[in-house]
Protein backbone atom coordinates (compact mmCIF):
# COMPACT_ATOMS: atom_id res chain seq x y z
CA UNK A 1 0.00 0.00 0.00
CA UNK A 2 1.51 3.29 -1.04
CA UNK A 3 0.17 6.76 -0.57
CA UNK A 4 1.18 10.25 -1.59
CA UNK A 5 1.53 11.06 2.07
CA UNK A 6 4.63 8.93 2.66
CA UNK A 7 7.33 7.07 0.77
CA UNK A 8 7.08 3.39 0.13
CA UNK A 9 8.58 2.25 3.43
CA UNK A 10 12.14 0.97 3.33
CA UNK A 11 13.47 -1.87 5.49
CA UNK A 12 14.00 0.37 8.51
CA UNK A 13 10.59 2.04 8.32
CA UNK A 14 8.98 -1.35 7.79
CA UNK A 15 10.68 -2.63 10.92
CA UNK A 16 9.58 0.40 12.95
CA UNK A 17 6.06 0.07 11.56
CA UNK A 18 6.00 -3.64 12.36
CA UNK A 19 7.16 -2.98 15.92
CA UNK A 20 4.53 -0.25 16.21
CA UNK A 21 1.85 -2.58 14.89
CA UNK A 22 2.86 -5.33 17.30
CA UNK A 23 2.87 -2.96 20.28
CA UNK A 24 -0.48 -1.49 19.20
CA UNK A 25 -2.00 -4.92 18.74
CA UNK A 26 -0.68 -6.04 22.11
CA UNK A 27 -2.23 -2.97 23.74
CA UNK A 28 -5.59 -3.56 22.07
CA UNK A 29 -5.51 -7.26 22.87
CA UNK A 30 -4.56 -6.36 26.45
CA UNK A 31 -7.52 -3.99 26.68
CA UNK A 32 -9.85 -6.63 25.28
CA UNK A 33 -8.41 -9.20 27.68
CA UNK A 34 -9.00 -6.83 30.58
CA UNK A 35 -12.59 -6.28 29.49
CA UNK A 36 -13.15 -10.00 29.09
CA UNK A 37 -11.57 -10.66 32.51
CA UNK A 38 -13.82 -8.06 34.11
CA UNK A 39 -16.83 -9.55 32.38
CA UNK A 40 -15.79 -13.05 33.39
CA UNK A 41 -15.56 -11.96 37.02
CA UNK A 42 -19.15 -10.83 36.74
CA UNK A 43 -19.96 -14.29 35.52
CA UNK A 44 -20.94 -13.15 32.04
CA UNK A 45 -19.48 -16.18 30.31
CA UNK A 46 -21.21 -18.81 32.37
CA UNK A 47 -22.91 -21.23 30.08
CA UNK A 48 -26.33 -20.76 31.64
CA UNK A 49 -26.40 -17.09 30.70
CA UNK A 50 -25.92 -17.88 27.06
CA UNK A 51 -28.05 -20.99 27.20
CA UNK A 52 -31.14 -18.79 26.79
CA UNK A 53 -30.27 -18.56 23.12
CA UNK A 54 -31.14 -22.21 22.77
CA UNK A 55 -34.71 -21.25 23.64
CA UNK A 56 -37.00 -20.60 20.74
CA UNK A 57 -39.06 -17.89 22.39
CA UNK A 58 -36.01 -15.67 22.95
CA UNK A 59 -35.27 -15.78 19.25
CA UNK A 60 -38.94 -15.21 18.51
CA UNK A 61 -38.96 -12.05 20.62
CA UNK A 62 -35.75 -10.86 19.00
CA UNK A 63 -37.26 -11.66 15.62
CA UNK A 64 -40.36 -9.65 16.46
CA UNK A 65 -38.15 -6.76 17.47
CA UNK A 66 -36.24 -6.89 14.19
CA UNK A 67 -39.50 -7.18 12.28
CA UNK A 68 -40.90 -4.13 14.06
CA UNK A 69 -37.72 -2.17 13.36
CA UNK A 70 -37.61 -3.08 9.69
CA UNK A 71 -41.32 -2.55 9.07
CA UNK A 72 -41.28 0.92 10.65
CA UNK A 73 -38.23 1.80 8.54
CA UNK A 74 -39.74 0.39 5.33
CA UNK A 75 -43.10 2.11 5.73
CA UNK A 76 -41.46 5.41 6.68
CA UNK A 77 -39.12 5.25 3.68
CA UNK A 78 -41.93 4.47 1.27
CA UNK A 79 -43.99 7.45 2.47
CA UNK A 80 -41.07 9.84 2.99
CA UNK A 81 -39.63 9.60 -0.50
CA UNK A 82 -42.68 10.79 -2.50
CA UNK A 83 -43.34 13.42 0.16
CA UNK A 84 -39.75 14.59 -0.14
CA UNK A 85 -40.20 14.79 -3.90
CA UNK A 86 -43.26 17.01 -3.52
CA UNK A 87 -41.52 19.20 -0.94
CA UNK A 88 -38.54 19.54 -3.27
CA UNK A 89 -40.78 20.70 -6.13
CA UNK A 90 -42.49 23.21 -3.82
CA UNK A 91 -39.12 24.37 -2.51
CA UNK A 92 -37.82 25.25 -5.99
CA UNK A 93 -41.16 26.58 -7.21
CA UNK A 94 -40.99 29.83 -9.17
CA UNK A 95 -43.81 31.29 -7.10
CA UNK A 96 -42.38 33.07 -4.03
CA UNK A 97 -45.39 32.49 -1.80
CA UNK A 98 -45.06 28.75 -2.30
CA UNK A 99 -41.28 28.65 -2.18
CA UNK A 100 -40.70 30.71 0.96
CA UNK A 101 -43.21 29.01 3.29
CA UNK A 102 -41.90 25.63 2.13
CA UNK A 103 -38.38 26.73 2.93
CA UNK A 104 -39.43 27.78 6.44
CA UNK A 105 -41.15 24.43 6.99
CA UNK A 106 -38.10 22.52 5.76
CA UNK A 107 -35.75 24.49 8.00
CA UNK A 108 -38.09 23.83 10.90
CA UNK A 109 -38.21 20.09 10.26
CA UNK A 110 -34.48 19.81 9.69
CA UNK A 111 -33.55 21.71 12.83
CA UNK A 112 -35.54 19.45 15.11
CA UNK A 113 -34.53 16.24 16.89
CA UNK A 114 -36.42 13.31 15.37
CA UNK A 115 -37.30 11.98 18.80
CA UNK A 116 -39.02 15.27 19.64
CA UNK A 117 -41.25 14.89 16.58
CA UNK A 118 -42.10 11.34 17.59
CA UNK A 119 -43.02 12.47 21.08
CA UNK A 120 -45.04 15.35 19.65
CA UNK A 121 -47.12 13.05 17.45
CA UNK A 122 -47.49 10.54 20.28
CA UNK A 123 -48.71 13.02 22.90
CA UNK A 124 -50.53 15.66 20.86
CA UNK A 125 -52.42 13.36 18.54
CA UNK A 126 -52.61 10.47 20.97
CA UNK A 127 -51.67 7.93 18.31
CA UNK A 128 -50.16 4.51 18.82
CA UNK A 129 -46.41 4.45 19.22
CA UNK A 130 -46.01 2.77 15.83
CA UNK A 131 -47.71 5.68 14.06
CA UNK A 132 -45.70 8.15 16.14
CA UNK A 133 -42.43 6.50 15.11
CA UNK A 134 -43.37 6.34 11.44
CA UNK A 135 -44.71 9.93 11.43
CA UNK A 136 -41.56 11.28 13.10
CA UNK A 137 -39.34 9.44 10.63
CA UNK A 138 -41.45 10.52 7.65
CA UNK A 139 -41.49 14.22 8.58
CA UNK A 140 -37.77 14.41 9.20
CA UNK A 141 -36.60 12.28 6.31
CA UNK A 142 -38.96 13.86 3.78
CA UNK A 143 -37.31 17.19 4.58
CA UNK A 144 -33.85 15.67 4.11
CA UNK A 145 -34.86 13.92 0.88
CA UNK A 146 -36.21 17.24 -0.40
CA UNK A 147 -32.91 18.97 0.33
CA UNK A 148 -30.88 16.18 -1.28
CA UNK A 149 -33.03 16.27 -4.44
CA UNK A 150 -32.82 20.05 -4.55
CA UNK A 151 -29.03 19.83 -4.37
CA UNK A 152 -29.20 17.29 -7.20
CA UNK A 153 -31.34 19.50 -9.41
CA UNK A 154 -29.14 22.50 -8.77
CA UNK A 155 -26.03 20.53 -9.65
CA UNK A 156 -27.42 19.84 -13.16
CA UNK A 157 -26.08 21.93 -16.03
CA UNK A 158 -28.38 24.88 -16.71
CA UNK A 159 -28.83 23.80 -20.33
CA UNK A 160 -30.96 20.81 -19.31
CA UNK A 161 -33.83 22.97 -18.10
CA UNK A 162 -33.36 25.52 -20.88
CA UNK A 163 -33.51 22.78 -23.50
CA UNK A 164 -36.65 21.37 -21.91
CA UNK A 165 -38.39 24.75 -21.94
CA UNK A 166 -37.21 25.42 -25.50
CA UNK A 167 -38.92 22.36 -26.93
CA UNK A 168 -42.15 23.58 -25.37
CA UNK A 169 -42.40 21.66 -22.12
CA UNK A 170 -43.99 23.51 -19.27
CA UNK A 171 -41.86 24.28 -16.24
CA UNK A 172 -43.48 21.40 -14.34
CA UNK A 173 -42.97 18.97 -17.21
CA UNK A 174 -39.34 19.94 -17.45
CA UNK A 175 -38.86 19.30 -13.72
CA UNK A 176 -40.59 15.91 -13.86
CA UNK A 177 -39.29 14.59 -17.17
CA UNK A 178 -35.85 16.17 -17.52
CA UNK A 179 -34.45 17.31 -14.21
CA UNK A 180 -35.77 15.01 -11.47
CA UNK A 181 -34.78 11.71 -13.14
CA UNK A 182 -31.23 12.97 -13.49
CA UNK A 183 -31.19 14.42 -9.99
CA UNK A 184 -32.36 11.13 -8.47
CA UNK A 185 -29.64 9.23 -10.29
CA UNK A 186 -26.96 11.70 -9.29
CA UNK A 187 -27.96 11.75 -5.65
CA UNK A 188 -28.49 7.98 -5.35
CA UNK A 189 -25.56 7.49 -2.92
CA UNK A 190 -26.80 10.28 -0.64
CA UNK A 191 -30.35 8.93 -0.81
CA UNK A 192 -29.26 5.42 0.15
CA UNK A 193 -27.02 6.84 2.89
CA UNK A 194 -30.08 8.62 4.22
CA UNK A 195 -31.91 5.28 4.24
CA UNK A 196 -29.23 3.95 6.60
CA UNK A 197 -29.88 6.96 8.83
CA UNK A 198 -33.59 6.26 8.71
CA UNK A 199 -33.03 2.64 9.66
CA UNK A 200 -30.78 3.71 12.54
CA UNK A 201 -33.33 6.24 13.72
CA UNK A 202 -36.01 3.60 14.18
CA UNK A 203 -34.10 2.75 17.35
CA UNK A 204 -35.41 6.05 18.73
CA UNK A 205 -38.72 4.23 18.91
CA UNK A 206 -37.32 2.78 22.13
CA UNK A 207 -37.87 6.19 23.73
CA UNK A 208 -41.55 6.41 22.76
CA UNK A 209 -42.11 2.81 23.86
CA UNK A 210 -42.39 1.28 20.41
CA UNK A 211 -41.69 -2.45 20.55
CA UNK A 212 -38.59 -2.46 18.38
CA UNK A 213 -35.41 -4.45 18.83
CA UNK A 214 -33.98 -2.49 21.75
CA UNK A 215 -37.30 -2.47 23.57
CA UNK A 216 -37.48 -6.24 23.10
CA UNK A 217 -34.05 -6.49 24.75
CA UNK A 218 -35.22 -4.39 27.67
CA UNK A 219 -38.42 -6.41 28.07
CA UNK A 220 -36.55 -9.71 28.01
CA UNK A 221 -33.94 -8.45 30.48
CA UNK A 222 -36.71 -7.32 32.83
CA UNK A 223 -38.51 -10.60 32.44
CA UNK A 224 -35.61 -13.04 32.61
CA UNK A 225 -33.52 -11.06 35.07
CA UNK A 226 -30.57 -8.72 34.88
CA UNK A 227 -28.13 -11.58 34.55
CA UNK A 228 -29.27 -11.99 30.97
CA UNK A 229 -29.09 -8.32 30.02
CA UNK A 230 -25.57 -8.44 28.65
CA UNK A 231 -25.90 -11.54 26.42
CA UNK A 232 -29.21 -10.36 24.97
CA UNK A 233 -27.99 -6.82 24.46
CA UNK A 234 -24.80 -8.09 22.86
CA UNK A 235 -26.63 -10.29 20.36
CA UNK A 236 -29.25 -7.64 19.54
CA UNK A 237 -26.66 -4.91 19.03
CA UNK A 238 -24.64 -7.22 16.79
CA UNK A 239 -27.71 -7.94 14.65
CA UNK A 240 -28.63 -4.25 14.43
CA UNK A 241 -25.12 -3.17 13.50
CA UNK A 242 -24.77 -5.99 10.99
CA UNK A 243 -27.96 -4.92 9.18
CA UNK A 244 -26.77 -1.32 9.08
CA UNK A 245 -23.32 -2.24 7.81
CA UNK A 246 -24.92 -4.27 5.01
CA UNK A 247 -27.06 -1.31 3.90
CA UNK A 248 -24.04 1.04 4.13
CA UNK A 249 -21.97 -1.34 2.01
CA UNK A 250 -24.83 -1.33 -0.48
CA UNK A 251 -24.66 2.48 -0.59
CA UNK A 252 -20.92 2.40 -1.23
CA UNK A 253 -21.45 -0.20 -3.95
CA UNK A 254 -24.05 2.00 -5.66
CA UNK A 255 -21.71 4.96 -5.48
CA UNK A 256 -18.84 3.02 -7.09
CA UNK A 257 -21.12 1.57 -9.74
CA UNK A 258 -22.77 4.93 -10.37
CA UNK A 259 -19.50 6.79 -10.83
CA UNK A 260 -18.48 4.23 -13.43
CA UNK A 261 -21.76 4.00 -15.31
CA UNK A 262 -23.87 7.15 -15.02
CA UNK A 263 -23.23 9.75 -17.67
CA UNK A 264 -21.52 12.65 -15.97
CA UNK A 265 -20.94 10.49 -12.93
CA UNK A 266 -22.43 10.82 -9.52
CA UNK A 267 -22.36 14.25 -7.96
CA UNK A 268 -20.14 14.53 -4.92
CA UNK A 269 -22.17 14.48 -1.73
CA UNK A 270 -23.12 18.04 -0.87
CA UNK A 271 -22.46 19.29 2.67
CA UNK A 272 -26.19 19.03 3.29
CA UNK A 273 -25.87 15.32 2.64
CA UNK A 274 -22.98 15.04 5.07
CA UNK A 275 -25.18 16.44 7.76
CA UNK A 276 -27.79 13.84 7.06
CA UNK A 277 -25.13 11.18 7.21
CA UNK A 278 -24.23 12.34 10.66
CA UNK A 279 -27.65 11.96 12.05
Amino acid at each position, binding site marked *: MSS*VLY*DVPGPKARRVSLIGSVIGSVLIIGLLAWIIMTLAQQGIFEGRRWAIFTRGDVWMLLGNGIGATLSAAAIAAVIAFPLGLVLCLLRISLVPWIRIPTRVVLEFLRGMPVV*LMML*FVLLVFGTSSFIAVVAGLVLYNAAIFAEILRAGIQSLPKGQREAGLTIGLTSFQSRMLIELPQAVRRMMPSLVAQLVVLLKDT*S*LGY*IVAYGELLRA*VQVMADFLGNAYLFPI*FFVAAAIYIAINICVSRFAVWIERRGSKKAAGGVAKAEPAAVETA*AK
Partner: protein
Amino acid sequence: MDVIIENLPLYWEGLLRTLFLSVVSGIIALVLGTFLAAARVSPVAALRGFSTVYVEVLRNTPLTIAFFFAAIVLPRLGVTFEQFEVAAIIALSAYTSAFIAEAVRSGVNSVPVGQAEAARSIGMKFGQVLSLIILPQALRTVIPPMINILIALVKNSSVAGAFFVLELFGYGRQMANANGDQVMAVLLGVAFFYLLLTVPLGILASTVERKVAIAR
Protein backbone atom coordinates in the same frame (compact mmCIF):
# COMPACT_ATOMS: atom_id res chain seq x y z
CA MET B 1 -48.40 30.19 25.82
CA ASP B 2 -48.73 30.64 29.60
CA VAL B 3 -47.16 27.25 30.18
CA ILE B 4 -44.04 28.29 28.33
CA ILE B 5 -43.68 31.55 30.22
CA GLU B 6 -44.32 29.86 33.57
CA ASN B 7 -41.73 27.21 32.87
CA LEU B 8 -39.15 29.48 31.33
CA PRO B 9 -36.55 28.71 34.04
CA LEU B 10 -36.86 24.99 33.27
CA TYR B 11 -36.47 25.62 29.55
CA TRP B 12 -33.46 27.78 30.24
CA GLU B 13 -31.85 25.13 32.43
CA GLY B 14 -32.55 22.48 29.80
CA LEU B 15 -31.05 24.67 27.10
CA LEU B 16 -27.89 25.16 29.16
CA ARG B 17 -27.62 21.42 29.85
CA THR B 18 -28.08 20.64 26.14
CA LEU B 19 -25.44 23.21 25.29
CA PHE B 20 -23.09 21.77 27.92
CA LEU B 21 -23.50 18.21 26.63
CA SER B 22 -23.00 19.33 23.03
CA VAL B 23 -19.94 21.48 23.71
CA VAL B 24 -18.12 18.92 25.86
CA SER B 25 -18.90 15.99 23.57
CA GLY B 26 -18.15 18.16 20.54
CA ILE B 27 -14.67 19.05 21.76
CA ILE B 28 -13.85 15.45 22.70
CA ALA B 29 -15.21 14.22 19.36
CA LEU B 30 -13.23 16.80 17.36
CA VAL B 31 -9.94 15.82 18.99
CA LEU B 32 -10.63 12.08 18.90
CA GLY B 33 -11.97 12.26 15.33
CA THR B 34 -8.90 14.11 14.05
CA PHE B 35 -6.60 11.51 15.61
CA LEU B 36 -8.71 8.71 14.13
CA ALA B 37 -8.48 10.31 10.68
CA ALA B 38 -4.70 10.69 11.06
CA ALA B 39 -4.48 7.03 12.07
CA ARG B 40 -6.57 6.10 9.04
CA VAL B 41 -4.02 7.54 6.60
CA SER B 42 -0.89 6.60 8.58
CA PRO B 43 1.72 4.11 7.35
CA VAL B 44 1.26 1.85 10.39
CA ALA B 45 -1.09 -0.97 9.43
CA ALA B 46 -2.39 -1.62 12.95
CA LEU B 47 -3.45 2.00 13.38
CA ARG B 48 -5.18 1.98 10.00
CA GLY B 49 -7.00 -1.22 10.86
CA PHE B 50 -8.09 -0.05 14.29
CA SER B 51 -9.35 3.29 12.97
CA THR B 52 -11.23 1.66 10.09
CA VAL B 53 -13.00 -0.83 12.35
CA TYR B 54 -13.86 1.83 14.93
CA VAL B 55 -15.33 4.21 12.37
CA GLU B 56 -17.25 1.51 10.50
CA VAL B 57 -18.82 0.07 13.65
CA LEU B 58 -19.65 3.34 15.38
CA ARG B 59 -21.08 4.93 12.25
CA ASN B 60 -23.47 2.04 11.84
CA THR B 61 -24.50 1.86 15.48
CA PRO B 62 -27.83 3.51 16.26
CA LEU B 63 -27.24 6.24 18.81
CA THR B 64 -29.84 4.73 21.10
CA ILE B 65 -27.79 1.53 21.29
CA ALA B 66 -24.69 3.55 22.19
CA PHE B 67 -26.67 5.29 24.93
CA PHE B 68 -28.23 2.04 26.11
CA PHE B 69 -24.75 0.58 26.40
CA ALA B 70 -23.26 3.55 28.24
CA ALA B 71 -26.19 4.26 30.56
CA ILE B 72 -27.68 0.84 31.29
CA VAL B 73 -25.27 -1.94 30.37
CA LEU B 74 -22.03 -0.38 31.67
CA PRO B 75 -23.34 0.31 35.20
CA ARG B 76 -24.55 -3.27 35.51
CA LEU B 77 -21.07 -4.42 34.55
CA GLY B 78 -19.60 -2.52 37.45
CA VAL B 79 -18.63 0.73 35.69
CA THR B 80 -20.73 3.21 37.62
CA PHE B 81 -21.00 6.94 37.15
CA GLU B 82 -21.71 9.64 39.69
CA GLN B 83 -23.89 11.36 37.13
CA PHE B 84 -25.60 10.14 34.01
CA GLU B 85 -24.13 13.10 32.14
CA VAL B 86 -20.86 11.18 31.99
CA ALA B 87 -22.57 8.26 30.26
CA ALA B 88 -24.25 10.66 27.84
CA ILE B 89 -20.96 12.37 27.02
CA ILE B 90 -19.25 9.00 26.47
CA ALA B 91 -21.98 7.87 24.07
CA LEU B 92 -22.25 11.16 22.20
CA SER B 93 -18.53 11.74 21.76
CA ALA B 94 -17.78 8.15 20.75
CA TYR B 95 -20.58 8.30 18.18
CA THR B 96 -19.77 11.76 16.81
CA SER B 97 -16.02 11.16 16.60
CA ALA B 98 -16.62 8.50 13.93
CA PHE B 99 -18.39 11.07 11.72
CA ILE B 100 -15.73 13.71 12.38
CA ALA B 101 -13.06 11.18 11.41
CA GLU B 102 -14.82 10.49 8.10
CA ALA B 103 -15.21 14.22 7.39
CA VAL B 104 -11.53 14.94 8.12
CA ARG B 105 -10.48 11.99 5.99
CA SER B 106 -12.50 13.27 3.04
CA GLY B 107 -10.83 16.63 3.62
CA VAL B 108 -7.40 15.00 3.53
CA ASN B 109 -8.34 13.37 0.23
CA SER B 110 -9.47 16.71 -1.18
CA VAL B 111 -6.07 18.37 -0.68
CA PRO B 112 -4.29 18.37 -4.06
CA VAL B 113 -1.67 15.64 -4.45
CA GLY B 114 0.99 18.24 -5.26
CA GLN B 115 0.83 19.60 -1.73
CA ALA B 116 1.92 16.32 -0.19
CA GLU B 117 4.48 15.73 -2.92
CA ALA B 118 5.99 19.19 -2.46
CA ALA B 119 6.15 18.68 1.30
CA ARG B 120 7.84 15.31 0.91
CA SER B 121 10.28 16.56 -1.71
CA ILE B 122 11.62 19.15 0.72
CA GLY B 123 12.29 16.30 3.13
CA MET B 124 9.37 16.35 5.53
CA LYS B 125 8.42 13.19 7.39
CA PHE B 126 4.90 11.75 7.53
CA GLY B 127 4.08 13.48 10.81
CA GLN B 128 5.28 16.82 9.48
CA VAL B 129 3.51 16.45 6.14
CA LEU B 130 0.28 15.70 7.94
CA SER B 131 0.40 18.24 10.75
CA LEU B 132 2.02 21.17 8.91
CA ILE B 133 0.76 20.85 5.33
CA ILE B 134 -2.21 18.54 4.89
CA LEU B 135 -4.33 18.87 8.03
CA PRO B 136 -4.40 22.70 8.13
CA GLN B 137 -5.77 22.74 4.58
CA ALA B 138 -8.00 19.72 5.10
CA LEU B 139 -9.59 21.10 8.26
CA ARG B 140 -10.35 24.32 6.45
CA THR B 141 -12.28 22.65 3.66
CA VAL B 142 -14.24 20.45 6.04
CA ILE B 143 -15.47 23.26 8.28
CA PRO B 144 -18.97 23.39 6.71
CA PRO B 145 -19.62 19.62 6.94
CA MET B 146 -18.11 19.73 10.42
CA ILE B 147 -20.61 22.39 11.51
CA ASN B 148 -23.35 20.19 10.09
CA ILE B 149 -22.07 17.29 12.19
CA LEU B 150 -22.16 19.56 15.23
CA ILE B 151 -25.77 20.52 14.40
CA ALA B 152 -26.57 16.82 14.31
CA LEU B 153 -24.78 16.49 17.66
CA VAL B 154 -27.02 19.14 19.22
CA LYS B 155 -30.06 17.29 17.95
CA ASN B 156 -28.64 13.91 18.97
CA SER B 157 -28.09 15.12 22.51
CA SER B 158 -31.88 14.93 22.85
CA VAL B 159 -31.54 11.15 23.15
CA ALA B 160 -29.81 11.77 26.49
CA GLY B 161 -33.15 13.06 27.76
CA ALA B 162 -34.48 9.54 27.57
CA PHE B 163 -31.56 8.17 29.60
CA PHE B 164 -31.97 10.00 32.89
CA VAL B 165 -30.26 13.26 31.88
CA LEU B 166 -32.42 16.32 32.31
CA GLU B 167 -31.65 18.44 29.25
CA LEU B 168 -34.03 20.23 26.93
CA PHE B 169 -35.82 17.10 25.75
CA GLY B 170 -35.82 15.56 29.23
CA TYR B 171 -37.38 18.65 30.78
CA GLY B 172 -39.80 18.82 27.84
CA ARG B 173 -41.00 15.31 28.58
CA GLN B 174 -41.35 16.12 32.26
CA MET B 175 -43.32 19.29 31.56
CA ALA B 176 -45.51 17.50 29.03
CA ASN B 177 -46.40 14.98 31.71
CA ALA B 178 -47.09 17.69 34.27
CA ASN B 179 -49.26 19.80 31.94
CA GLY B 180 -51.30 17.13 30.22
CA ASP B 181 -53.75 19.65 28.78
CA GLN B 182 -51.17 21.87 27.12
CA VAL B 183 -48.80 19.32 25.64
CA MET B 184 -48.71 21.02 22.29
CA ALA B 185 -47.57 24.38 23.66
CA VAL B 186 -44.94 22.72 25.85
CA LEU B 187 -43.44 20.71 23.00
CA LEU B 188 -43.53 23.61 20.55
CA GLY B 189 -41.59 25.54 23.19
CA VAL B 190 -38.97 22.78 23.26
CA ALA B 191 -38.85 22.85 19.48
CA PHE B 192 -38.32 26.61 19.54
CA PHE B 193 -35.34 26.31 21.86
CA TYR B 194 -33.77 23.62 19.67
CA LEU B 195 -34.19 25.85 16.64
CA LEU B 196 -32.54 28.63 18.63
CA LEU B 197 -29.41 26.48 18.63
CA THR B 198 -29.56 24.73 15.26
CA VAL B 199 -30.73 27.48 12.88
CA PRO B 200 -27.88 29.95 13.65
CA LEU B 201 -25.39 27.08 13.29
CA GLY B 202 -26.94 26.21 9.92
CA ILE B 203 -26.66 29.81 8.73
CA LEU B 204 -23.05 29.86 9.93
CA ALA B 205 -22.37 26.67 7.95
CA SER B 206 -23.74 28.08 4.70
CA THR B 207 -21.88 31.39 5.15
CA VAL B 208 -18.57 29.64 5.78
CA GLU B 209 -19.26 27.35 2.85
CA ARG B 210 -19.65 30.33 0.53
CA LYS B 211 -16.42 31.87 1.82
CA VAL B 212 -14.45 28.66 1.37
CA ALA B 213 -15.95 28.13 -2.09
CA ILE B 214 -14.62 31.53 -3.20
CA ALA B 215 -11.20 30.83 -1.73
CA ARG B 216 -10.69 27.69 -3.80
